[in-house]
């Protein structure tokens, strides 16, 4: 799923402090990285990877087909446009603080060309034994068959650590990002997990604000695999902004209660806390086993 033997990924913004450090960790996790891109830094080498001025050069020299973007917010829209223009199929944008209108333009353009963009403001994807595009810490993962998709990075880590602690390994961890607009939503990732042979059950880590969880409910009601959901922000007061640009309840929607009700009605098991997720998953997986 997402990362495989055919993946040849580049790092946009590889010469920056975060880009360089994360390239080290991505390589250590076995990620198939082939090059880096930073305009004006072509010809250098970072962590043993050649650096190019443009994405087009990296594609021409290495047949790159995926990218992870660490460039600063002010240049992120252009970097994403460049990657889309170059025909990359998978683009992960880790950068935070991108203006929402920029994100909307990226999303619109990606939909026209068919590139899959994950993020922005996201920890990216981690596939145990295949590698990662982004910043998810390898230490919390164990290989297994639970697919995890979340908006918040650190809460997803806590959930994954709880799963690993309980002996439930993961098929993939996918962070879609905490902004009010993200380019790939829960609904699409749930569809991927449903079709993925290596995934037996799915954990959705949502939070207050926006309507992505509500749309996810529509997909969950059609899924054959069990889904356990956690929604953070039950204690949050309306109108307050909790760090994520997306985590704000506006009048009339986006509250934890409404999301929980819709997900529950769609057939998801609702966890009250991260440590309850493994318990609910084991129950649901036992039910599936019994049916088989």
């Amino acid at each position, binding site marked *: 799923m997402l990362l495989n033997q055919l993946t040849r990924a580049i790092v946009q913004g590889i010469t920056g402090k975060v880009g360089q450090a*994360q390239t080290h960790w991505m390589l250590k996790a076995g990620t198939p990285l082939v090059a880096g891109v930073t305009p004006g830094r072509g010809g250098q080498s970072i962590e043993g990877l050649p650096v190019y001025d443009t994405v087009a050069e990296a594609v021409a020299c290495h047949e790159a087909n995926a990218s992870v973007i660490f460039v600063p*917010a002010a240049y992120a829209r252009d970097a994403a446009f460049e990657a889309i223009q170059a025909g990359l199929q998978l683009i992960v944008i880790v950068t935070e603080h991108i203006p929402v*209108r920029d994100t909307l333009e990226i999303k619109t353009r990606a939909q026209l060309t068919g590139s899959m963009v994950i993020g922005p403001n996201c920890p990216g994807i981690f596939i145990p034994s295949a590698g990662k595009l982004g910043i998810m810490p390898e230490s919390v993962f164990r290989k297994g068959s639970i697919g995890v998709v979340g908006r918040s990075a650190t809460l997803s880590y806590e959930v994954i650590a709880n799963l690993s602690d309980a002996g439930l390994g993961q098929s993939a961890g996918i962070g879609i990002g905490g902004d009010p607009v993200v380019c790939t939503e829960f609904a699409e990732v749930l569809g991927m997990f449903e079709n993925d042979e290596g995934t037996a059950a799915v954990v959705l880590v949502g939070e207050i604000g926006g309507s992505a969880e509500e749309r996810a409910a529509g997909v969950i009601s059609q899924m054959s695999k069990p889904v356990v959901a956690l929604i953070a922000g039950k204690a949050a007061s309306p109108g307050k902004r909790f760090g994520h640009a997306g985590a704000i309840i506006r009048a009339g929607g986006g509250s934890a209660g409404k999301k929980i009700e819709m997900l529950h009605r769609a057939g998801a098991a609702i966890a009250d806390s991260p440590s309850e997720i493994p318990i609910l998953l084991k129950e649901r997986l036992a039910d599936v086993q019994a049916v088989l």
Partner: protein
Amino acid sequence: MIVPEDAAKRLLAGCGLIVPCGQIAESEEATAAITQELGGRSVVKALIPTGGRGKVGAVRVCHSADNARQSAADLLGKEVLGHRVDKLLVEELIPISNELYAGVVVNTATDSIDLVLSLTGGVEIEVAAHSDRQVVHQLSVEPGDLLPLHRVNNWLGRHKIELSEYPLLAGTLLNLYRAAADLDAILLEINPLAMDTDGRLVALDAKLEVDDNALPRHPELNELFMASLSSRELRARQLGVSYVPLDGDIAVIASGAGLGMATLDLLQQRDLAPANFLDTGGGISEQMVKGALELVLEPALVRGAIINLYGGINRMLEAAKGISAALENKPENRPIVVKILGNQQEEAWAMLEPIPNVHVIRVVQTETAVDRLKKILDPD
């Protein structure tokens, strides 16, 4: 950032929209004097960042300087819709023949920029919008589209909007749409957009919310933004963290919004109420964590703290040094429960465990940390 009405109107005037003449008054005398200058008539408005002022008497039409003075006396220093009124906006009184509603909103449910128009403007627009969808017209524009004038014209034509000043309305809506784009507005709302007796369309009100993430490309808004922050919010910003004040008595620090909200939920499940919530984000350093801990412990009613950090990008030894430095400076008798995981966790635990009143949690479950705090604070 919600831009104050007077500043929003100045910005809109620069984008080709017509706004009333007006000045800020902070006293009864100034209100009367400005009204005198405006020809003895004015509209006196409480300058607070919220809608619905008309319904609660915070927008007054005044027909004399004395009248304006009295309105100022009624409003200044009062609490209106949860905001203290320190300033008034005193504007020329525009004779109106018709009131419209116009707005531009970034629609995150449909991924479009929506231009919204209603021929029924004024204070009852929300009621009208809920009761009768026919009166609210919406044009969804693809992000990045410049929106040509002919498209606005076609849209108005399609909805059979009959208004004598049709070209004027199309031009005004286009200016509004482009102003919202230029200013990186998440929301720009003019209610009412008034047709005056001279046939002009005038923005009598302006509600402008600018995307905080876009502020770096709007240096002209920097001063306004800084002025909008409380002193603790300003300190948080200087530290590079986000700080949300809340009503309870437990200080909360987390390395991410989602983890923070999950921590708040667990506190609430155990009848503990957060006093604040500080999100460190991904750039943890010793100095930042030291400043962060000092900030959240500052309110006197705080009786304990929980620190919940994950070291993905972050280095946890830096965090431990920051906690240790803050408590070396000012030892605490309030309990501080620390859950630190990831990158350099062993070194961080070893550094923190000897510090009095610091309780280090070595497991992955945040519940364990919250339970520990509960047990210390409310042993029964």
